[in-house]
């Protein structure tokens, strides 16, 4: 054996192992930074993830007559107030089924995941980095939407903050799991985008984007309770008005995360 190869071999002992741990930490940070850069360089995606929820609040508030005036239909509350948690659900659905799903499907189709699987880093770490970046975008987007509502329309609220966070995290988890599942059983990135939007619009409907709050017919709500984004929206609405989310909604979120995530883990292929 060539002498120069020897030191590398020897260092695969203890020194090598701690060097590997160090490199694992370093690579995780680099993966997240890289994914964040790629997210920002995709202008449309960055727009939908970060700007869209706030833009929606502002546009609806400004364009819809009576949007920030108390309405008898909904017990004297202002539409803008119960529309806010729905906007957050919309942001979760959009980031998961548009940003995350497209990034994932494109990476697989182009062989990025396969290329990565030849290195010591598992492609799972890339998925985690993508989810971290997308959730960060989501938090930012939601924060901007809340800020817009407070600044532009003087919305006041006494939300149940822990309940809000639980609903937000569980909602994001179940929608990310759904996006992984769609990516798992669509062979190409075109198919993933297509199926993604087939799932996206019914999800928005279930979340009450078109029939917010009390305007949603009861029968529809009973179905919507059992969809991930519908349950997330309901849980966010409850927490927004100061109550702890209903157990049914939290159970639906946990259950769908486990079900979709488990199926996705079984079905997902690193290369198409």
């Amino acid at each position: 054996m060539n002498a120069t190869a020897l030191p590398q071999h020897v260092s695969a002992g203890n020194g090598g192992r701690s060097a590997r741990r160090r490199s694992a930490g370093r690579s995780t940070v680099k993966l997240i930074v890289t994914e964040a850069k790629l997210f920002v360089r995709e202008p449309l995606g960055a727009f939908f993830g970060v700007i869209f929820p706030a833009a929606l609040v502002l546009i609806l508030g400004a364009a819809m007559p009576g949007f920030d005036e108390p309405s008898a239909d909904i017990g004297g509350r202002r539409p803008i107030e119960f529309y806010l948690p729905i906007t957050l659900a919309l942001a979760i659905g959009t980031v998961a089924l548009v940003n995350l799903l497209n990034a994932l499907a494109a990476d697989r189709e182009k062989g990025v995941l396969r290329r990565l699987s030849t290195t010591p880093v598992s492609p799972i770490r890339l998925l985690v980095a993508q989810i971290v970046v997308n959730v960060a975008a989501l938090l930012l987007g939601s924060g901007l939407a809340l800020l817009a509502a407070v600044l532009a329309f003087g919305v006041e609220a006494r939300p149940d903050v822990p309940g809000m966070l639980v609903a937000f995290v569980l909602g994001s988890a179940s929608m990310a799991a759904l996006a992984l599942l769609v990516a798992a059983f669509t062979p190409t990135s075109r198919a993933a985008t297509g199926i993604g939007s087939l799932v996206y619009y019914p999800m928005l409907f279930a979340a009450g984007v078109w029939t917010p709050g009390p305007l949603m017919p009861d029968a529809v709500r009973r179905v919507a309770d059992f969809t991930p984004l519908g349950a997330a929206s309901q849980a966010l609405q409850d927490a927004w008005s100061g109550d702890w989310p209903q157990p049914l909604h939290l159970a639906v979120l946990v259950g769908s995360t486990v079900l979709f995530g488990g199926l996705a883990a079984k079905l997902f292929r690193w290369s198409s």
Partner: protein
Amino acid sequence: MTVIEVSNLQKRYGDQVAVRDVSFEVRPGEIFGIVGPNGSGKTTTVECLTGLRQADGGTIRVLGLDPTRDRAELRHQVGIQLQESHLPDRLKVWEALDLYSSFYAEPADWRALMDELGLTAKRNTVFAKLSGGQKQRLSVALALVGNPRIAVLDELTTGLDPQARRDTWQLVRDVRDRGVTVVLVTHFMDEAERLCDRLAVVRAGEVVAIATPAELVARTELPGVERPTLEDAVLALTSPTATGRTATSPN
């Protein structure tokens, strides 16, 4: 001592047999070539020996490790350049090298590698805007950035201009001189002749000869051809009408 041992490797995709029976050994520090027609199973073979695909039959040992069972360990020791590999469209050259070097405990200096492969001028260019040859060079750089003990290069120079091919050959020699064992899949006979210490010739998923390029040429007798080239030799071995195996092929 051998670095890679493959015996009676078999791999099917559904009904399609990609590798019927492949056996070879690679010695430390050599540049081992694999040549053969399109679809003869070269890529499938190197994918099995790097653990990217699971073999249906036979045994493989790479640095004494089983590529399927010891996949994680092998990833640290083997650098791979895939025939078809891509990076995200909007990732810049330097970012890719920096990222990939962070995956390894003792990486090579990626800036030096970027320089050696003539990519420094393109360091801020995103992957989608690189030419085919530049993508290929980046792919080679990424295979070497982890300071591997074995480098597996599948169609290393396809798409490169003549000068870049020469530069890449020199790079492979330099890498070998550092003690790295190289497995090289190629369609270029001049490359095989100048670069490879030994060659495995495959046809329809079977090894039909293993020898040095010079031996393969010396062994070839073609009616009407006075001084056969390596290409003549390989074509004679792999043409559909060629039968049997040559004297020095395994078993």
